[in-house]
């Protein structure tokens, strides 16, 4: 995802997509008995919002949508286990770390952009042969500003700040199977003078932070953040917005990644090879890309829509003020990890072996 293409997107597609923001936009799809699909996605409030914003219109149009809830890695494992048999789901949300693996093993099919009219409203970088970037989470350090104030701590500026002695036992870190793991370790690698090309440089810093635990589900860390058991964690802005609704005093800070500030985690959507309802799978995906749906889902979950007009509308939402980075300059300056530089096997091995636990 180059900055140039992102800038092109930020400045070029607003006019095209404004019309789509009008509520009730149904695109070019016909009504009728559409059959059923299964969508592999994350659970909790993410799935609830996805179902409300995308699943409901599909049901109204005569289709049935079910969800297979797991991490992207967990869902990929299900695809691998079902190799040679019918696919366990029809579409799937994933992240950059899995795309090459899934494409190489032909678990995902090429998208038919003729069936995705709303994808025309997206910038080039969001449209790939076998995925569409639907949204992105803004990753940083989520912290309880009241607990920090009580302890006399300033807002964390770097991931390394989480090693402060007053934070011992109060910091959680995303485990290797959690989506927010990657930007956090890349950030620490940058702070150690390296980059995503050598994530192992992050390990001494993680050991210095000595996290109280390593979370593998956002629901779990949300509970511990809400109870005040955990004060800070590398996580994403969406949960600041969601938990503030329950009066949990959370804020987010966006550390530097070299010259970049803050990090984006693109949420990708694939149609699974072997789906028996390719038409509905594409329809689900196209509905997901409708500007109004993008805006509503982004507002509900606190993430960044890809559609430019939806971003502009999101900027007017008071809930996002001071939480999401939404100006053109800020968006252009977000760090996006380059997985072609990451040695996944080496990192997973190092994560299991070299992290000091307990």
């Amino acid at each position: 995802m180059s900055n140039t293409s992102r800038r092109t997107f930020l400045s070029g597609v607003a006019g095209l997509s404004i019309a789509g923001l009008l509520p009730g936009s149904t695109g070019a799809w016909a009504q009728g008995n559409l059959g059923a699909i299964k969508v592999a996605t994350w659970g909790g409030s993410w799935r609830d919002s996805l179902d409300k914003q995308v699943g409901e219109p599909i049901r109204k149009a005569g289709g049935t949508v079910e969800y297979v809830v797991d991490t992207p890695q967990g869902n990929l494992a299900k695809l691998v286990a079902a190799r040679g048999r019918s696919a366990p789901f029809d579409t799937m949300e994933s992240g950059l770390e899995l795309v090459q693996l899934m494409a190489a093993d032909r678990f995902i099919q090429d998208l038919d952009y003729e069936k995705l009219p709303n994808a025309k409203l997206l910038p080039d970088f969001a449209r790939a042969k076998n995925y569409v970037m639907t949204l992105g989470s803004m990753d940083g350090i989520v912290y309880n500003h009241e607990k920090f104030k009580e302890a006399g701590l300033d807002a964390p500026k770097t991931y390394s700040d989480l090693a402060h002695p007053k934070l011992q036992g109060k910091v959680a870190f995303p485990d290797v199977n959690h989506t927010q793991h990657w930007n956090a370790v890349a950030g620490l690698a940058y702070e150690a003078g390296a980059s995503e090309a050598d994530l192992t440089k992050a390990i001494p810093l993680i050991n210095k932070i000595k996290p109280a635990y390593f979370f593998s589900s956002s629901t779990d860390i949300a509970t511990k953040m809400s109870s005040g058991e955990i004060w800070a964690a590398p996580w994403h802005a969406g949960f600041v917005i969601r938990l503030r609704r329950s009066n949990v005093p959370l804020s987010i800070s966006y550390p530097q990644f070299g010259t970049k500030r803050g990090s984006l985690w693109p949420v990708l959507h694939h149609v699974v090879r072997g789906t028996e309802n390719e038409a509905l799978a594409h329809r689900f995906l196209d509905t997901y890309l409708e500007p109004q749906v993008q805006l509503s889902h982004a507002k509900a979950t606190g993430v960044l829509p890809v559609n430019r007009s939806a971003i502009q509308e999101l900027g007017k939402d008071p809930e996002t003020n001071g939480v999401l980075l939404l100006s053109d300059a800020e968006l252009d300056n977000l760090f996006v990890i380059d997985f072609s530089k990451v040695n996944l096997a080496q990192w997973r091995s190092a994560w299991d072996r070299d992290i000091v636990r307990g």
Partner: protein
Amino acid sequence: MRIRRAYDGALALALAVSVVLFIVPQLFFVRQSFFESLAMGMMGDQLSFANYATILSDGFYIAVFVRTIVLSAIAALVALFIAYPTAYWLARLNSPVLRWLIILLLVSSFVSIVVKVLGLSMLLGSQGPFATFLRFVTLGWWSGSLLHNELAVAIGLVQYSLPLLIMLLFGVVQTIPKSLEDAALVHGASDWSLLRRILLPLSLNGIVTAGLIAFNMNMGAFTSAVLLGGGNVLTVPVVIQRKIVLEVDYPVASALSVLLTTAVIVINLLLVALRRGGPVGAGQGRQAA
């Protein structure tokens, strides 16, 4: 004679179902464990011991096995120490309340392990009663957490096996005639000598069996290690899950699984062999009495 044949046939059917449900899946694991992983669930076609050699020569895996065995053994012993007096008390309780207590025990053993573990995580969390009490008695000096460490996992394992152990030992204690205890007491035995010279020898076989069952359950326990360990406690089941889900490396996961099963069988056989040279158990005790 015809009834006997039907009875034997039913037993043979049960054996066949057990073989299909237990041994056949294990054979798949054993077979997979001898092939090289080609990533993403694909396997090579050359048989080799490479996966076993990798695991057995790697300090990381050895440490994971040692941790799993030690945690399982400690949790089984602690559970025995709690379960035996409880089972004894229940077995000697001559009250209509007993039936309700047994039902309660049964119900508690049917509660999902996830629900049990989540309840424990609230109890052990830094906002829970134990941590609050510890902060209070240490005047705020102690501010840690009882969660996300080996202690928390061990407590989870004890909780996991305790209802079953109590049920098993309840049955064992019930086989010991109350008259033996009465006779010992009449002859001046103290409570301690009653326990040491009558109850424990007569229930030793049952205790060993129950302890081994708890140990075996603990060795394969995944939920407690994941939810209470919080990524800090890597046991063999957790590493197997990571191998399958994160790395999609079925051959190494299968080899780990085979080694885990082998370790459980060897430890059981060793204890049984040791037990053969030990004191008499309940059955023999009754005959002696």
